[in-house]
């Protein structure tokens, strides 16, 4: 029960910030995909950079564990291509479709219904995919620090610097 409450509170905070950051909009999502408006990328990458440093700090303090999904080239690459195609058509991703509905953009409702249908279809296709695409290039649970054999506190600042460089460039170009 407590864990469900944590979920709800985390969602409310996250949804609030998504709305205030103006990233729940079709125009912003398509703006990013059309390389015209980088609002989404600014929000997402800043979020990732802060969370990356914070989560690794928690891990080093022994207060949290990482949750690493396996790298499966077949599933990741094919899934990514298919996801991108659908994202471009819908203009919302799974979480933002629900959020967009919350601020009254009710075309997202068709997207949510479509996503439920897509999830049902995937469940039907899973036995086949499990023996095909999901076995191609299974590299297991990888992280960059582990792959390169260096401390994560070398990778994290490099990622942050890369992100900052990108942000300065966005602002210079007015994206």
């Amino acid at each position, binding site marked *: 029960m407590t864990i469900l409450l944590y979920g709800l509170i985390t969602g409310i905070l996250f949804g609030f910030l998504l709305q205030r950051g103006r990233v729940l909009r079709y125009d912003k999502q398509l703006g990013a995909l059309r390389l015209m408006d980088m609002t989404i990328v600014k929000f997402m990458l800043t979020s990732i950079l802060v969370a990356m440093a914070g989560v690794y700090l928690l891990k080093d303090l022994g207060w*949290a564990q990482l949750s690493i999904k396996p790298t499966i080239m077949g599933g990741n690459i094919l899934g990514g291509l298919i996801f991108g195609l659908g994202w471009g058509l819908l203009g919302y991703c799974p979480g933002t479709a629900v959020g967009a509905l919350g601020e009254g953009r009710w075309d997202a409702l068709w997207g949510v219904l479509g996503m439920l249908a897509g999830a049902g279809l995937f469940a039907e296709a899973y036995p086949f995919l499990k023996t095909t695409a999901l076995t191609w290039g299974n590299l297991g649970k990888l992280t960059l620090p582990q792959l390169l054999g260096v401390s994560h506190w070398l990778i994290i600042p490099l990622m942050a610097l890369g992100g900052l460089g990108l942000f300065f460039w966005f602002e210079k170009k007015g994206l």
Partner: protein
Amino acid sequence: MEEQDSRGWNPYLAGALSGLVIVFSVGLAGKFLGASTTFVRTAGMLEKLLTPERVNRLEYFLKEIPQIDWQWMFVAGIFLGSWLAAKTGGDFRWQALPAMWEGRFGPSRLTRAFVAFSGGAVAMFGARLADG
């Protein structure tokens, strides 16, 4: 659109705060943020209303059990949080068609419904295949 934009927060600030939300979630609840598994669980719950024995046999629904969990509540929370922010910020408004869509594809709601539904189905299939 410009006038509406002025009411938003700086995306770097909102992004950084959302990063802190992630850190607190991981630290306090041990939960990383995600949304797409919730669509699988909900699809399973809906299918269960029609064909319960079939859902119980599908391997994917044994992996992702159709029930309400942390992430399901998180996704419900996104809806509430967005509604709350839009209401308190004064930019809640019912909108059938995004401006950019209407400018390019015209005022047909049926076309938008068809493309949005198809796009949603394709996107979710891809997201699940990539396990993301």
